[in-house]
């Protein structure tokens, strides 16, 4: 199953609807990085609200995506982690260090525009 990547202004939105295989995740990672380059996107939002479980590989991939798109000049925000998923993740030691997170798509967009506002006025 491939993950749809939507373009919304300066942002890309990838919405993971159901559990993905490792291969699908790797494909998603590459596709997202490609799209950032093509569209000159300023940020990507990855919506994981459809996931009932986030394992070590998924967590690792989310970190990889953050680092990859950063190299391409964009920010990444992971949104929609369910409370029980978050609890399970910290128990497993998956903290997503260095990854920006937000409650849902709305908050993710707000976070990005706040960052943009900061950059504009301080620059």
């Amino acid at each position: 199953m491939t993950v749809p990547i939507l373009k919304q202004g300066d942002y890309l939105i990838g919405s993971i609807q159901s559990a993905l295989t490792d291969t699908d995740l790797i494909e998603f990672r590459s596709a997202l990085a490609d799209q950032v380059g093509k569209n000159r996107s300023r940020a990507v939002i990855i919506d994981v609200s459809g996931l009932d479980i986030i394992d070590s590989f998924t967590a690792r991939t989310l970190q990889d995506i953050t680092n990859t798109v950063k190299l391409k000049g964009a920010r990444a925000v992971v949104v929609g982690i369910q409370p029980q998923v978050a609890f399970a993740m910290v128990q497993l030691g998956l903290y997503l260090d260095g990854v920006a997170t937000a409650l849902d798509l709305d908050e993710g967009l707000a976070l990005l525009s706040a960052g943009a506002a900061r950059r504009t006025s301080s620059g």
Partner: protein
Amino acid sequence: MTENRQVDLSGPQLFTRQEQEALGLLWEVYERHYDEIMAVTMAAANSDPALKQIMSQMRPDQMEADQLKSRRQTESAMRDGKWQPILDDIREQGGHYAQMGLPFQSWFLIVTAAQKIIIEKLFEAYAGDAARLQVIVLALNKWFFDVTLARIGETYLATREHVIRQQQEAIKELSTPVLPLRAGLLLLPVIGVIDSQRARQLTEQLLDGIRTHRAKVVVIDLTGVPAVDSAVANHLLQTVRAAKLLGASAVVTGISTENAQTLTRIGVDLSGLVTTSDLQSGVDEAEWLLEFFRGRHQTGRDERQLPVAER
């Protein structure tokens, strides 16, 4: 053989045949002086404030009925060796009074008062027969202390343990409120000892609270936490990290000097935490973070205090 065998107090056979015989004789003396023994015992009971209060709440006819019932049960137990009814009754009464809050000490007072007057009567009745007197007194003591008081004690313990369990449940439910302080800001005051079960519950409630109230910042106040160790610190870190996964930053406040020294001494790395000394400065800090997330603050602030992902 049978007279010297070990007595199993938990089984139906409480007393040896010799003891049972002695108790039969004891019952005769007891029955003969019943009114006097009761009067002395009741006087002793009335001198105890806790007992007096409980007895004053009982209806006189109820008390009389209880006494009559207990007298019949004592008769069939001591004379005929039918112990089960009176043992059941002791257990029931013990639990009942334990729930009413009567101190165990009061039972001791009644039993020793009764023992004293009964022994006096026994000495009058068997003054010339020391050997028999000794057997009866020993049987009496066994009946009163090894059997009656031990059983009442057991029910007291069971009742208290039940109460403690109930209270623990209540404390657990009451002690982890998640309070919305203003839009986007939650307060989690932690009071009391944190064990792993409680830490889990605390985290779950906080995460649910973050989602329900769409919180961006949570203030975790530890003023009410008496002691911390590495396990508690670890739980705390997990809570903060789980909150972060939901997009909420945590500010930890109220770590006492003692706790701070303990954490430093055991070498827990809390460098990822935003901490302030008390709740007030914690809320200030949280408000600053809220403003920062809205993009209204630009410069003039040391960003080392920001959660990692925001730097």
